[in-house]
């Protein structure tokens, strides 16, 4: 069972309080974009996911906690969370993820 850091509660809580909510940063086309999208483009938005082996940007919902949806970077191979961040903030860059990973390792080494 994971310990997940909720960026709204700013606390690590047990996984039992959370639900997984799919890949992050998939933006819903707005009312102007939708009518001009081809069926193929629309299906790409609807169904096609990266299914990354490695560090994956995904959404979690703190449903038995503060009720907020947030984003996370989690490694799908090691099942380790690299970082979590609030909904609406931009996709994390490779560099930001590197820094977070190194900080985690440094924190771990301290204990």
């Amino acid at each position, binding site marked *: *069972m994971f*310990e997940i850091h909720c960026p709204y509660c700013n606390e690590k809580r047990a*996984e039992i309080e959370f639900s997984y909510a799919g890949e992050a940063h998939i933006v*819903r086309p707005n009312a102007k974009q939708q*009518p001009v999208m081809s*069926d193929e483009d629309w*299906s790409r938005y609807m169904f096609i996911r990266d299914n990354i082996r490695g560090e994956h940007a995904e959404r979690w*919902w703190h449903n038995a906690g503060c009720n907020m949806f947030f984003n996370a970077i989690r490694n799908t191979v*090691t099942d380790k969370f690299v970082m979590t961040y609030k909904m609406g903030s931009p996709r994390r860059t490779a560099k930001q993820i590197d820094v977070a990973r190194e900080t985690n390792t440094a924190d771990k080494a301290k204990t």
Partner: protein
Amino acid sequence: MSAFRKAGRGIVDSAKAINFTFDGKTYQGFEGDTVASALLASGNHLMGRSFKYHRPRGVLGAGSEEPNALIAIDRGTGRVTPNVRATTQEIYEGLNAESQNRSPNLKFDMGAFNNAFSIFFPAGFYNKTFLWPKSFWDKVYEPFIRNMAGLGPAPTADDPDVYASSYGHCETLIIGGGPAGLAAALAAAKSGEPVILVDENPQLGGSLLTTPTIEINGKPARDWIAKSLKILSKAENVTLMTRTTATGYYHDNFVALVERITHHVPNAKIGKVREELHRIRAKRVILAQGAIERPLVFNGNDRPGVMLASAAQAYLGQYGVAVGNEAVVFTSHDTAYQAAFDLADANIRIAAIIDVRDEVQNDLTEGATQRGIKIIRSAVISKTFGTLRIKACEIYEPETGIKTKIRCDALLMSGGWTPSLHLWSHSKGGIKWDADIAAYLPDVANENAVCVGACNGDFGIAAALSAGHKAGQKTGGGRKVYKTNEADFGTGVVNNGLPNYIDTAKQKAFVDFQNDVTEKDIKLAVLEGFKSIEHVKRYTTNGMATDQGKTSNLNALEIASKAVGKPIEKVGLTTFRPPYTPTTFGALTGYRDAELFDPTRKTSIDPWAEANGAVFEPVAHWRRAWYFPKAGEDMHAAVSRECKATRDSLGIFDASTLGKIEVVGPDAAKFMNLMYTNPWSALPVGGCRYGLMCREDGYIYDDGVVGRMAEDRFHVTTTTGGAPRVYRHMEDYLQTEFPHLDVWLTSTTEQWATIAINGPNARKLIEPFVEGIDLSPEAFPHMKLREGKICGVPTRLFRVSFTGELGFEINVPSHYGRALWETLMEAGKQYEICPYGTETMHVLRAEKGFIIVGQDTDGTVTAHDAGMSWAVSKKKKDFVGKRSLARTDLTANGRKHLVGLLTEDPNIVLEEGAQIVTDPNQPIPMDMLGHVTSSYWSEPLGRSIAMAMVRDGFNRMDETLHVPMPNMAHKVKVVKPVFYDPKGEKLNVV
């Protein structure tokens, strides 16, 4: 003293005799014995029959790795525990153990004919057995396999015992209480921070318990253990847990420990806790699980009396039991010599040591010479003799071709050691192949965890102690050197198949003893094309038995890698998964048993329904009144009566389970416009509207009546089962796609009790109790809502109807629900008020053609398909599902449409789910047009009615179709799905 008990050996308490039974016969052992050690002390090696071939089996090991000696412990009805390892079950006075998988008894087993026909059970026999004809599947093959492949008997009654569960935390969790674990605990204890040390055995000490001649720093190992335990028990920050198995290692150092509390206690009372599941979150984990000796794979290696050398050593060292009078040792590793020496020193004759290697270290040959033991090098055992116990074995020297048969009553084997990486593997720790010890060792950690001692390849007691001490220290600290009198741990060789003059096909060389997988099976699997070790495992079932391949995985891997022609490190190890050893359902369930297993939600009116004879049905987590039978009525009669009473006069229904969500805020209407297909901006305050919700894929997701309480407030209702997912769906969009909208969502399902009153007398019933609301049809038309009071209690009163009759849904705060219900029941007597349940509700709505989401729709139905295009706004620029509804596929011709069906014979009630065809005589497979979604007997109409999804249904009105059912195909006419009062006049009863 039993025949095979050696005076002065072992740490069992010979002053405390204990009687127990095995297969009805009484045996005596001592306190500290296991069932296995006590049986062996009586000279009884036969303890079980194998899984597939029913071959007689004795113990292979002396601990939790045991694959053969599985027994059932019978403590009375509902308290039979099958598949307990005789090697770990402590004896207690009155223990009643039974062998398994034999009939009529262990010595004469009818099932053993499988052994003679073993040619029928090759690798993949499960897959290969299910051959045509189909009629043989459930009549012949399945019963046969089930009978044959029995482990223990399944319990026939509820388990009356109590199982506890708890959560815990610690700084350091140490798993394994052998030398490495104890040294780690001693070092970790000094930090003052919480430490938990667990061991699956009754006593701490691990391998030190089985090798009593070992001295640590000049003192007997037993003294070192005693001193260590004294320190640890005194330390307030240390918790010692014995008889506790770490069964699974999960993310972020979350470890499940199962403590067996009364498994060793005579007459354990019902009501006392039998096991406790501890869920521990540890800052760091030290794994000191040790290593398990590997069997050698040779012809006849499974006869009772053939066992691991270390097991024989343990039976002698810990239990004072000789596993025989004359033993042969067969090895590819040095450690077996120490086992042979231990036995020889206890006056057990060692007939010979057969070593597959041509070179043996001098100190070992000297030790053997001193004890008069003959060593035969470059030799193997090619055959064993004896049925229920080994009698002799044949030694084969491939270089010369010499074969020698020698007598023995025990055969001790050693193929080297396998570090126990089970929990490390659960934690996703990396592993690397170590060619020197021919085993996988821990590599990079994935969690804050470390392996120490034999499981890390730190073989030998001094090495284990040092490694444990180092790991236990909080920060660095110095190394601690331990001096012991142990012999060098030595080395061994990898066994890439032992030579034999006998044809492989005629050998019975077992790899997985519990699942009866032989060397031949693994080779056959590779030959048949299974190259990946994961496939070989599944095809042969090697390592898939309850022992999880503790003694077989490495041997299987070696055989497979040779057969595939790839080095072992390229073949890879199969993944270990929890649990480490079999775990009872009781431990996993804990307190969440019976009514606590899954929560049952009940409305405030539920106690009334129960008191008034309702039959209930589960709907999502709710239990709902299904129907209210009167004396002598069956379901059909009760539902017919309830339907008629409601249509004729007055029905009352508990609708409290309907999901309710309060949507509030300045942008509430905008949000509703996006979440539902209908338009909401123009809905006036006090107005209601049927709302239809899609997912983004355009298919119907949920529905319900929505009332506008105020400009900025909607009272949304959802289906009973859909409430949680609709709430999540709304929150998700609000927080992530429409965060600019100023809206708040609150789940209010539990806040309101909802009573639906339907029938011509509905208004007359409630009128006397309502204050502040003008109920006249002019002031309060259909699909409006009003706030006021009923019986002096605040109410949100909806004039809506799910039956087609004049109807009201009265919402009052939950705790007033029952009082209001009882008041209305009393007042309703004059109208012969009839309480009805969900079945009548379903029939009444079907008579009107109202859909039930999830029954008439299945996640691939659009609003148009369901005949509800009217509910989809054409003007809105956006709503969830809008773009998908424009997809070519969803606008194409030939989609299935929701229609009504009337059977030609009005008495036939179609089966829900039945298929619909144009011509019932067409060849199979028929072209199926759709299926029946709802079907009922309609009492008011005096005939059956049905709803169905039918291809191109809207264009088939009045067409005759056919519905094949088990006896015959029935003719049906396609109609509009409104059977009762199509003009809706009944709504307007004054």
